[in-house]
């Protein structure tokens, strides 16, 4: 089965004030299958939001392909883009900024229906509100009368209005309380099951991503350093950065500790990378606990670890096959 969405070698440069350029995305490749939830994790500044915005063409990619339905979204014109966005919609991070404060919920959720000329608006809006767990009476009210979680439900209803096949959720739960986070995550999981949605779930929080994702991509410095099925990433992380991230997820002592692939807390030293100054060799070497003499000279290729088809399980580390990487020395 061919994937629903294929991203290949996606590159995004931003020019800097001093005439240089910043590589926000540096050759990202992944596949998204129908009905799949793909988690993208990484620390702030690693380019994960840029990835979401570029897939949506809110920013134009510098190079690379975004194949959807046999067409390359990266290069299509305005009219085709509007058509493509019928199938790919986005849920934003800030539920207070993503809803126009002067429009009622009915107007907000109904707007995509107007733009795409869909009839029976009122019934459809009521149906959408019901789908995301809001009462019909919400239609007449303004966004400021709702809580953060409810607002995020409204934003999800708007994204679903034109029955997209893919939702890009950019930090969609980061601005919410933990208890509300799980409600929204469960809602997204429910929608995936009911509507067969594919979701690209972007977050900095591994515990959130782990909960829902079928596959996970770990981003560092504009690159996907590790990519593969969720279970395999969590049980057998290969990249030192993934290991460090996993070790930082808090867990209940005695219960998960025994099963965890990374039993000890790995504390990374060094600074969060300054995206304007790229290190030589492996991008991660200044912070890596497993740094070897060669790491600051040669850049590791993104290698296929298991299977033959390209994006199945990949990792960009010279020592991905070395079992000793498990623990810091």
């Amino acid at each position, binding site marked *: 089965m061919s994937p629903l969405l294929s991203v290949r070698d996606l590159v995004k440069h931003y020019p800097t004030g001093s005439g240089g350029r910043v590589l926000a995305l540096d050759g990202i490749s992944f596949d998204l299958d129908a009905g799949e939830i793909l988690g993208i994790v990484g620390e702030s500044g690693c380019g994960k939001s840029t990835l979401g915005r570029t897939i949506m063409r809110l920013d134009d990619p510098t190079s690379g392909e975004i194949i959807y339905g046999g067409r390359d979204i990266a290069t299509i014109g305005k009219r085709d883009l509007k058509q493509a*966005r019928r199938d790919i919609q986005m849920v934003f991070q800030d539920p207070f*900024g*993503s809803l126009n404060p002067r429009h009622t919920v009915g107007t907000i959720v109904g*707007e995509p229906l107007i*733009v*795409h000329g869909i009839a029976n608006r009122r019934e459809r809006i009521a149906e959408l509100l019901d789908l995301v767990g809001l009462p019909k009476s919400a239609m007449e009210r303004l966004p400021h009368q709702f809580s953060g979680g409810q607002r995020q439900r409204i934003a999800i209803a708007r994204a679903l209005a034109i029955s997209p096949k893919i939702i890009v959720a950019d930090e969609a739960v980061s601005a919410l309380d933990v208890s509300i986070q799980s409600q929204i995550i469960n809602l997204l999981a429910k929608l995936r099951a009911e509507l067969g949605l594919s979701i690209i779930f972007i977050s900095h929080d591994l515990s959130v991503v782990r909960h829902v994702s079928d596959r996970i991509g770990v981003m560092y410095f504009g690159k996907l350093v590790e990519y593969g099925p969720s279970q395999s990433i969590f049980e057998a992380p290969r990249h030192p950065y993934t290991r460090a991230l996993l070790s930082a997820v808090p867990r209940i002592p005695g219960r998960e500790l025994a099963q965890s692939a990374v039993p000890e807390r790995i504390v990374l030293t060094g600074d969060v990378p300054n995206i304007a100054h790229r290190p030589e060799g492996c991008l991660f070497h200044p912070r890596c606990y497993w740094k070897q003499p060669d790491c600051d000279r040669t850049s590791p290729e993104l290698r296929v670890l298991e299977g033959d088809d390209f994006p199945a399980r990949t990792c960009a580390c010279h020592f991905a096959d070395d079992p000793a990487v498990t623990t810091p020395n």
Partner: protein
Amino acid sequence: MEAIARALDSDLAYRFRRSPVAMLAALVVVLLIGSSVFAPLITSQNPFDPGSLNLMNGFSEPMQPNQFTGETFVLGTDDQGRDVFATILYGMRISLFVGFSAVIFAMVLGVTLGLLSGYVGGRTDTIIMRIADIQLTFPAILVALLIFGVAKGITPPDRRDEVAIWVLIIAIGLSEWVQFARVVRGATLVEKSKEYVQAARLIGRSPVAIMVRHILPNTLSPVLVIATISLALAIIAEATLSFLGVGAPPTQPSLGTLIRIGQEFLFSGEWWILFFPAMTLLALALSVNLLGDWLRDALNPKLR
């Protein structure tokens, strides 16, 4: 009814009731606008209908019976026997009409250019804002005079009086659009980066629809403040131009024209012909300005 109840219950209404200055200013403005709108019902004399004038009434002092006719005028009369009170009411009509029209013209022009400048950006932004900068280096009254002069040059002499009011409106409007454009551009830049605008783009809204439906409503509160302050400025600008003799024609005198006529009699002792129109202009401009100041404070949460 529900809308009225909601308006009375709003934050703004509460703030209004807490501010005696704003209430007094609003009262003066309402009184002045009301009396000029209903001028024919308030005064029996139309001062610009020569048939209703009696030259014998000329130079009556305020509150004193005229020595020839025995008629009493509350604010006196001018050289032609026109009741100063009536000329003020009728003059204020012209002043307010020109003021409101000029502000609406400036607002439409400035808001449109500001939205375009902020949303489209790039070269469009540069061109519009440089024109605005250049215009700001000239005093507004000079710009208005310049436009007035050009318009006078291109209209045939027999039609000048007809078009004078409209030229005045355009001249004052063009001299005041910059404030609107700058404020709306700034607000547009802020709103544009918010996620609801990006969401509208993803939905497939056209740039024009995004500007009009999404950004414009969120930039309107500063526009309201500027419009109020501009109204006071426009009324003063109109009075200045008319005082200089280039504004409202003698057949349709505004407050400024009345002040110009009145100052000819100041040194011969007929002070009331100048004094009352001038005080009316002062009260009008001051009240509108105070309202604008209050509105700015009330709508700007950072100043609380």
